[in-house]
């Protein structure tokens, strides 16, 4: 495996990807013949209308699900060769996530939520790193607050800190501003790209927000599960 710091190392490669699910009315095609490659340090926006298959594609690329057909390589590993646990091990500490609904654990404080992936990855400096990343998102003073005590924007900043805390090779973001108002959303986007740039992380995000998509180096537009256009800045 090529070291991930090589700028041109492919982080994600998908070839002829299809996803079909059986329904009562026959087979439903969600994704059809999607081919893409994302190299280290790239930023890719997957856009499209609701139901166009954006989130499904994100899930497949991150190894959260297996494609019906086609091939995906994540961090140099062919996902089809790995079982659920092997895919989990591949993600541990090297893949970060940001979700539309934040997905913070309600019982944990802001600091502890950031701490969680570090602890899971067995990092010895977990607490310092968590504090550092919470400071990076300007939430040091809210470290002891639970998600319930934080605003939506603050919760998403905690989620950003959590996503970047393990120094992942790639961060997947699913509609990261979907639950936020325009102003807050814009600030979150700024922060996301700032963190991404400084950490040199690869970023793959799903959005239907054109402004957000425009900030990515590449854009892939899906219509009814098919790639309609690929745009590079």
């Amino acid at each position, binding site marked *: 495996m090529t070291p991930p710091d090589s700028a041109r190392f492919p982080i994600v490669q998908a070839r002829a990807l299809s996803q079909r699910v059986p329904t009562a009315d026959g087979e439903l095609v969600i994704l059809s013949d999607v081919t893409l490659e994302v190299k280290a340090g790239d930023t890719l926006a997957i856009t499209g209308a609701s139901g166009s298959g954006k989130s499904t594609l994100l899930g497949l690329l991150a190894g959260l699900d297996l494609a019906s057909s086609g091939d995906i390589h994540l961090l140099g590993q062919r996902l089809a060769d790995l079982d659920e*646990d092997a895919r989990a091990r591949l993600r541990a500490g090297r893949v970060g996530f940001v979700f539309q609904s934040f997905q913070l654990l309600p019982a944990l404080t802001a600091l502890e939520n950031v701490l*969680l992936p570090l*602890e899971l990855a067995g990092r010895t400096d977990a607490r310092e790193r968590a504090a550092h990343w919470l400071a990076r998102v300007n939430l040091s003073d809210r470290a002891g607050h639970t998600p319930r005590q934080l605003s939506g924007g603050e919760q998403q900043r905690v989620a950003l800190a959590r996503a970047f805390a393990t120094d992942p090779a790639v961060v997947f973001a699913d509609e990261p501003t979907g639950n936020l108002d325009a102003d807050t959303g814009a600030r979150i986007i700024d922060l996301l790209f700032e963190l991404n740039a400084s950490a040199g992380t690869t970023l793959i995000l799903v959005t239907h927000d054109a402004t957000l998509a425009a900030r990515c180096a590449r854009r892939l537009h899906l219509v009814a599960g098919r790639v309609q256009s690929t745009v590079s800045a």
Partner: protein
Amino acid sequence: MSIVRLALWLLRRERASGEWRVLLLALVIGVGSVATTGFLADRMQRAMRDEGARFLGADLLVTSPRPVETWPANALATSQALEFASMVSRGDAFQLATVRAVDAAYPLRGSVRIADRAFAPGAPQPAQPPTGAIYVDQQLLPLLDAAVGDTVQIGEARFRIAGVVAEEPGQLGGVFGLAPRVFLRADEVAATRVLQPGSRLTYLYQFAGDPQATAAFATALKPALDDTQRVIGGRDGVENLRDGFDKLDTYLQLTALISLLLAVAAIAIAAHRHARRHYDQAALLRCMGATTAQLRTLYLTQFLLLGLLGSLVGVALGAVLQHLLAGLVLPDTLATLPRLGPAPVFIALASGLTALAGAALPALMRLIRVPPLRVLRRDLPPLPLSAWIGASLSGAVLLALIAAYAGDITLVAGFVGALAGLGTVLAVLARLALVAGRGVQRLATGPLRFGLSQLLRHRFDSTLQLGAFTLALFLVALLALVRSDLVDGWRQQLPPGAPNHFLVNIAPEQQAEVGQWLTERRLEASRLYPMIRGRLVEKNGQPIAATLPPEARDSNTLRRELNLTWAAELPANNQILAGRWHGAQVANDISVESGMAERLDLAVGDALGFQIGDQTINARIGSIRSVKWESMQPNFFVIFSPGALDTLPASYIASVYVPPGTHVMPDFVKTFPGITVLALDTLIGKLEAVFARIIGAIQLLLGFLLAAGMAVVVATLLASLDARQQEAVLLRTLGAERVWLAKGLLAEFLALGVLAGLLASACAEIAMAVLADRLFDLPGRVHPWLWLALPTAGALLVMASGWLTTRHITRVPPMQSIRAMG
């Protein structure tokens, strides 16, 4: 950080947020009720065993016609006695007596009461009299025209009567043929020179010690004994009590089992809710790279720790509560109840953990199989692949637990079968009831209509809740029914005014005189029954022993002489099971007691031969009948038709009730010196005390079952809390008033409670009909009050616990709830 530490860390964090409260509460109440039931049952059983030992005089009694030289190794306390028949004389009067030569340790359990005159209560003291003295039964005094202080002769030795035996252990065992008792010092037997080679002797070896040692000793002993030797355990002390003990045992088993099942139901529901609330967490951890093994370790650690914590708290709670409640209900007997044993503590702990394992296993397996994709698609359920494995695994665990509790395999099979059947019937009935509710809903208006529509809309949840409520109500009702029928049954066995004196050896010509004496004093007496002693020797022309398998030849019925009687009228406590009662008509027909018929393989139509004196009397079995041995009436194994035994010399027997405080019996003894009076009033008093204790304890246990039933109701309601909250928030946002919502909720709970009550009534009646017959040998009957009580109790219970668990739903401002739900 290791995954175990991570598990503990998450657990600690969630404790602060109250996330574990529901599951912990279910565990504490569940284990608490199992522990309390177990503790009380253990203490009650040991109390009963002690009671039996007091009646027997020892924990274990071995009788043998020969001295036993070697015993299996044991550290038990022992006492040795020798029993033989001998003439006791004073001047011209003489009487056959049963002499028991005892050592200083006799009896090991209970006490012998010695009085200074006849019919006095006396005081407990050692049964071994001072040197040169004996203690005698009060009936011996008039027979010998003697008083305390007089001297009598036994064989070649003379003894002073130092006191009267007012009470001794084992008094009730076969009272009728017994010659009056004499207690003698074991070291003075030789001086009497009455024992000759060939004398009929009974060696009595008593043992006492802790239950395990005694049981181990009994097990080791049995193979070493031959046909002529018998081992009698503490519980066999009094035959009249044995039936009561057996029923209590069955009842306690059933109670423990039911409280365990209720606990399991509560834990299962709480665990399911808990798992559902952690699907997102599990999915997130999977996204972050946690493997299945890591998730399994994580959640197993948490469940195990929680199980331990809940079980420990439950056990402690059980220990405290059983003590408080025992003191509240049985204040006089608290001091005499044995202390809490360590065994039920471990059993309760193990039960708690096993119940949690069994109940939580399916939920846990679903939790660790949550797909990581759930982080993107919240509606994604965990993989259902291994659900059946989880269900069968937990089924096996629970079955093992039930088996461990019930002990008896038929009880387990019956119970599990009944439960499975019940589950299916309940599911169908609950569905049907909900469909019927649709009709009612059309007629209803406002909040009631809304409440009912809520019930119908969540058909799956409603069926589950209805099923759980019904199960809890049904099980508690079942035990309440068994309890009241059992208690009534016992009360009937020992009604106030049950005979407390037996009059034995009434000569035929004394019948009228005795009858008149009793009538003059307005004493209630039984009929006078003639009594002839005889031995069963033949069946259908063959020696009886030859007709039986070797193991049945040891029967007591064959070894000892039986009390035979004749009567034209069936005695009140007897019931014909097969054949026809002979009445006054059929000569040489007999009626045989059902237990004896079973032991000796006798059936209607068999011809039996009895050795009576030097004659053999042949008779045909005309009927088999059941006898209530505990009725304190003269009871007989064999009743002849009138005319068959008329020519043989008979004496008569009767039982009589002498009200407490009426001192007429000394006068009777003076008037009829030849008639033996057996006073059983102290013994009956003891029997009543034992039954009172049993009844009190059973009431206690029932209280605990109610708590376990409540736990199921609360767990079920809490499980549906999240969904209810979401709906309430939506409705309030849409403009529903608080009062309106509250009324709707109450209407829903009311409907659920009433429906569950009705279903439970039906189930309880059916189950009771089966149980009463199979397990408790009680007559079946319908309980109309149940149909009113259960729906009312159900409605109140569900409404109260429902309102307590969900009331804040209507109070929280919608905005706060929406934010809380994130």
